[in-house]
């Protein structure tokens, strides 16, 4: 197959430069080039698997954890000590702004962990000093120490057993930075360069970035893994879904992010295009700001949840390519609770509840709709309009609010919203990755708990769950957590969407990564 592709290439009329690059039409600007600093999917896409590697990695086919920069690891019997053996002769990228003088070693691992773990680390406060993913999981408290045993061996000690620890290390955010580069920039007095002009061990090196336009990468010639098959990788930032589809049709993009759910048929009909599909580990939801009255009242939230018909939303917004959400976990997760009862559409009951808590007809509330598409919500504006229609029936007027994505996230973190239509993409297959970032008190600070909801009882339950490695036992705790969520309804779970990606026929090896960012390292382009 490969041979055919290669000979085909040499005969093709397309010039060398054209066959030598892949254009990926992405949906938005990255928030930077360091995934430690940002949980948004656009950042993970742009940096996590292109520029960087992790100690360990998820296999996109089996979802198992496989070696990456750590060639092997050992977990102690008490589940508290993890020892990683590091890969040798791994080169960092050489760019006009940095020339590495040594291979990757334990110092880089220590730097990468200590940067977010230690508050007095010289790099801790660089670029804002907020590490949302780790903070939302409370990892800096779980980890007792990160020690260098020798140049190629690192030992991590935990304070208590954490059954999701390895999975967390394999997420997009646990990237390994270059300690040598960080020192160079610290001396030069420009430490924030580390996050904007990134250096990693990944398959591509950063070349240039122009906001709202494009990102350029080049092949990392001395990549430790399988050699990259093409020279240039370009992210063409195209926020509009219809334009992305159009560019795919005209061949201006080799692959696109988030094909619209309404456009799937078109892509399937074209013989030169390929559509990949996978059930997604995600949740699209409608969160209420529980700090703001009247949304601090659980009955209010219950009433609103009953006022909307999820089936219709799924049909109109996802065009049916999503599973109706009952709880927070998608059916593909092992901890999924089959007998959970979701809310059902009951406008009469909703109105009764509203009367009970004294919400007059004509009450006005805001719904914030995210300005970009995510797998969990391909068109949140449209969903907001539909919800606007439903709430009108129970006498509530709705203002739809939308800002540009960076502004949107900033204002959301400031807690200015009444309610927001947003969602969550899992970063690992572990259920804790849903329960903790979305509802824990710590996640309010890190900005992933959009409901600003905090319950000691709930936090205790999910902490307890992590102490057990047996799935059956853990599942019990999550069921208890589910019943609290049902009662409190800090957010209305709406749908678990399928994940799609579309690309030209001549692109191969481009797989849907069930957890987080896209990967181009294994992609091949033939003609």
């Amino acid at each position, binding site marked *: 197959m490969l041979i055919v592709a290669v000979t085909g290439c040499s005969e093709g009329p397309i*010039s*060398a*430069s*054209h066959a*030598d*690059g892949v*254009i990926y039409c992405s949906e938005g600007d990255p928030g930077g080039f360091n995934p430690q600093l940002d949980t948004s999917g656009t950042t993970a896409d742009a940096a996590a698997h292109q520029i960087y590697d992790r100690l360990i990695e998820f296999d996109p086919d089996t979802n198992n954890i496989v070696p990456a920069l750590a060639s092997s690891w050992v977990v102690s019997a008490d589940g508290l000590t993890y020892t990683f053996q590091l890969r040798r002769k791994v080169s960092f990228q050489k760019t006009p702004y940095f020339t590495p003088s040594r291979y990757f070693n334990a110092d880089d691992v220590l730097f990468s962990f200590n940067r977010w773990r230690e508050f007095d680390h010289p790099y801790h406060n660089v670029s804002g000093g907020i590490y949302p993913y780790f903070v939302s999981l409370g990892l800096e408290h779980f980890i007792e120490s990160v020690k260098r045993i020798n140049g190629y061996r690192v030992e991590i000690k935990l304070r208590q057993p954490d059954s999701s620890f390895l999975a967390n290390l394999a997420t997009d955010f646990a990237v390994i930075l270059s300690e040598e580069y960080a020192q160079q920039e610290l001396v030069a007095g420009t430490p924030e360069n580390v996050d904007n002009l990134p250096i990693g061990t990944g398959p591509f090196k950063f070349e240039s970035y*122009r*906001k*709202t*336009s*494009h990102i*350029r990468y080049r092949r990392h010639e001395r990549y430790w893994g399988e050699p990259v098959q093409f020279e*240039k990788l*370009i992210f*063409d930032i*195209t926020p509009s879904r219809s*334009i992305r589809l*159009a*560019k795919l*049709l*005209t*061949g*201006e993009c080799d692959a696109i992010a988030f094909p619209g759910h309404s456009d799937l048929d078109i892509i399937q009909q074209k013989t030169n295009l390929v559509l990949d599909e996978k059930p997604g580990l995600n949740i699209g939801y409608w969160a209420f700001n529980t700090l703001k009255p009247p949304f601090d009242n659980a009955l209010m939230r219950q009433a609103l949840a009953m006022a909307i018909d999820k089936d219709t939303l799924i049909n109109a917004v996802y065009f049916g390519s999503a599973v109706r959400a009952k709880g927070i976990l998608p059916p593909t997760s092992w901890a999924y609770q089959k007998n959970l009862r979701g809310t059902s559409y009951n406008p009469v009951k909703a109105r009764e509840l509203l009367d009970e808590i004294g919400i007059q007809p004509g009450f006005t509330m805001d719904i914030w709709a995210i300005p970009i598409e995510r797998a969990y919500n391909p068109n949140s504006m449209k969903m907001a309009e539909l919800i606007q229609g439903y709430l009108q029936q129970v006498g509530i007027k709705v203002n739809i609010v939308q800002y*540009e994505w*960076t*502004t949107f996230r900033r204002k959301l973190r400031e807690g200015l919203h009444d309610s927001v239509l947003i969602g969550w993409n899992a970063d690992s297959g572990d259920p804790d990755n849903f329960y903790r970032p979305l509802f824990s008190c710590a996640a309010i600070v890190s900005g992933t708990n959009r409901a600003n909801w905090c319950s000691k009882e709930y936090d205790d339950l999910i902490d307890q769950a992590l102490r057990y490695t047996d799935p059956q036992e853990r599942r019990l705790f999550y069921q208890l957590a589910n019943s609290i969520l049902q009662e409190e309804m800090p957010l209305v779970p709406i749908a678990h969407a399928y994940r799609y990606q579309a690309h030209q026929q001549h692109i191969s090896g481009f797989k849907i990564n069930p957890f987080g960012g896209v990967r181009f390292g294994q992609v091949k382009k033939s003609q």
Partner: protein
Amino acid sequence: MMSYLLRRLNLLVITAFIVTVASFALVYLFPGDPLINLTGIVPANSEAYAQLQQEYAFDKNLFMQYVHYIQEIYQGNWGLSISSHNSVLDEILLFLPATLELSVYALVLSTVIGIPLGFWAGLRYQRPVDYGILSASLLGYSLPVFWLGLILILFFSLNLGWLPMSGRISLLYDIPHYSGFILLDILHSGLAESQAAMQDAVNHLILPTLSITIVTSSIVIRITRRSVTEVMESDYIKAATARGLSRGQILWRHGLRNTLLPILPQLVLQFTALLTNAMIVEVIFSWPGIGNWLLQAIYQQDFPAIRGGMLAVSAVVIIFTLSMDVLLRLINPLKDRDVHGTI
């Protein structure tokens, strides 16, 4: 001539004054802190704020602030963009040439298409050819340019697959920024594949240029046609006809010059409308120009950028209009002092 030039210079100074005052006023009119709107720098603490205040003369009265503002503008410090933290002027210099390139091609093409067609229609006044051209131009002139762009994309890019629909050139070609005019930059780059790159860039240019050209050339046709009919009805043409000159001779000796001279200033005035259209078309064709950039700035409430963009676009229009005015005056010293365009 001297007094004319002085008058123009006077107008230039006054206009520049008004535009800079307006852009300075924006600093206060935009929501938020005027100092941040001006500089694009968000001071970390009150000391930094005080220092910034002093630096930009914000502790003095409005007049001094304005004077300081003019100095900064003149020195090229247009503030920082709030969203990208880059110098606004640098960004403008990066994006403006793309718009100018598009506008210039469209302007040239509109003139090359519009004037001959307008002549033809005017010479065949109230005959089928005239009606045909007139109807077409009325239709072209009534087309909303953003809709036209969409229809062209639907037809030529998506259905036929002939032409690309976004950007200036395939991103696989990395053309270094030199003049900002993509065709010149390709020639200058000396890349091995510059032939293919050139072809690609031209393909990218066709649809956006066409969208603007259809609308603008309709206006050019109407202006030319009217001028031609007026000239052909004038007494000296009648006299020439009476002298027995052939139509061709009349047109060549008397018609051409007398028709073209009065419409040139009107054509110059169309540049403003053309530039606006170009800025809208950029959005549809994802053309990395000033219109697209300005719109992003508005979405992101990037006030220093909006202010800079407005200043830059106005400056382009003013400089173009006035310099063309002077140029036309050199060609035709008899020209009326004030010509204001009608369509």
